[in-house]
């Protein structure tokens, strides 16, 4: 099967600032791909290049088998895009916003009406659809945006931070829509997020990017699995620490240490913890807290980038 989205070695710089360096992304039809990274990591720049809004300095992109640069119209015909900042016209009603979107895609009037009825039902906007969008809450706007980019029945959806600024109920609602579009309509979705839980909940494949580089890529379970099945965390003061010899042994999957925190991925936490504590204590350090947890995508991110996600929810 051919990938629906295939981007090779993308790079983009704005003057001195390198926004994206050498990012490759491949998304199979009917799957959800999440680009995960902090603000300013290059997510929006990447999505802008994928959606024909920005020309890459280097690299190539094909969507649905068509080259984004040379066959941009064919690409534009199959993509639906929502943007990070809401782009609704406040002086139009929700229905008009959808109707104008349909007109842009040359959908005839009767089909537009039917499609609007379906979509309004799907995103549950009800009577509010005939109100000016200026009166909408953030959640309603996101739902309308989603409905708008579905007007022309796209094959591929690009959602830039689809749940940014939403309350938990609305986030769950948007997640449900995305899952439904994938399972019921076989839609391919590429979304960006800085929410670990979002990526974990929705994505078949996660790409972690930071400073414009792809740090890690894989299924959420494989990425988490790389860290071992358990994660031992020690906090305290670790000024006299060297990497122990046993980090090369089979049961250790990862080792990461700073002066205040040590994280060790291991096979079975309960069995290895005594050895770990003994080692740290012997070298003359002070342990304040110990915990054993299942690693999360957040830990994967920390491992990959050496820092926690800003604004993590």
């Amino acid at each position, binding site marked *: 099967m051919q990938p629906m989205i295939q981007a090779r070695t993308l790079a983009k710089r704005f003057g001195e600032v390198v926004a994206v360096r050498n990012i490759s992304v491949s998304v199979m039809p009917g799957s959800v791909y999440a680009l995960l990274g902090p603000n300013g990591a290059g997510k929006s720049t990447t999505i802008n290049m994928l*959606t024909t*809004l920005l020309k890459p300095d280097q690299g190539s992109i094909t969507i649905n088998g068509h080259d984004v640069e040379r066959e941009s*119209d064919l690409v534009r015909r199959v993509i639906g*895009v929502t943007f990070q900042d809401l*782009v609704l*016209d406040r002086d139009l009603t929700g229905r008009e916003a959808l109707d*104008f979107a349909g007109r*842009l895609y*040359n959908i005839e009037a009767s089909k537009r009406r039917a499609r609007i009825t379906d979509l309004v039902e799907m995103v549950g906007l009800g009577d509010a659809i005939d109100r000016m969008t200026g009166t909408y809450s953030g959640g309603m706007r996101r739902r309308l945006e989603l409905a708008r980019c579905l007007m022309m029945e796209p094959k591929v959806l690009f959602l830039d931070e689809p749940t940014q600024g939403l309350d938990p109920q609305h986030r769950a609602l948007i997640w449900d829509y995305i899952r439904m579009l994938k399972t019921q309509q076989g839609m391919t979705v590429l979304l960006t997020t800085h929410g670990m839980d979002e990526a974990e909940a929705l994505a078949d494949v996660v790409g972690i990017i930071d400073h414009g580089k792809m740090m890690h890529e894989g299924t959420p379970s494989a990425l988490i699995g790389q860290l071992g099945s358990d994660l031992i965390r020690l906090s305290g003061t670790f000024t006299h620490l060297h990497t122990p010899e046993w980090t090369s042994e089979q049961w250790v999957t990862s080792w990461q240490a700073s002066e205040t925190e040590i994280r060790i991925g291991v096979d079975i936490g309960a069995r290895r913890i005594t050895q770990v504590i003994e080692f740290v204590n012997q070298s003359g350090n002070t342990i304040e807290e110990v915990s054993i947890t299942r690693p999360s995508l957040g830990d994967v991110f920390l491992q990959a980038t050496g820092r926690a996600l800003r604004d993590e929810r």
Partner: protein
Amino acid sequence: MYTATHTIWLRHMRKFFRNREELGGLIIQPILWVALFGIGMGRMLPGDGDYVSFMLPGILALTALGSATGGGMMFLDERLRGILREYQVAPIPRMSILLGHILATVSKSFFQIFIVLSVAFVAGARISGDIGNLAMSVVALILFAVGFASIALAVAMRSKSIMGYHGMIFLFNLPMLFASNALYPLENVPTWMRWLAMFNPATWYIEVARPAFAVHTPIMSSLIALTLLCAFVAWSIQIALSRFRAMTS
């Protein structure tokens, strides 16, 4: 191409007639221009007193320039807020996005021009040319409006802020008219200013438009002026289009 242009135009017009503030301003503005400029200034000038008819084409040009400024502003607002991206990801020619905006600007401008004309005729302006003069005058006004609507868009495509845009666009407004024969005849101005006026699209427009309203001493053939106006429109649309295409790089 046609559908997309029409859609974008329609969307702007619907917003326009819904926006009472914008609508009110556009209606009152030309009334003030004719009243203050035409009648007030006419009294100060010696002569037969038909200054309103003389400067009517100038006021129409001013109206078109004002609309162009507003059109560019609208585009800049859509660009900065990201609304423009909805058009950019749609499978429509880039030219249709541009034309939709230009047509919306020109439509608003003619809505206003209609009001200016009504007020001016009440204030004593009259048509002195024949039907041919009048037709030429309308064509010239459309060309002038389209040209400056395109230039304002081209400026709005590069501006980083609203302030920056206004700084740039101010250059095209009043100075443009004062460096032409739109508001006063060129007989008494210094030679360098007369030369400047020769290269000014506002002058070309006036050359074609004024004979319909007032006695006019031509400074160039109206056919040449019309040709220059056409070239100006082609050039300005080309600039806007190439800048628009460059926005993706």
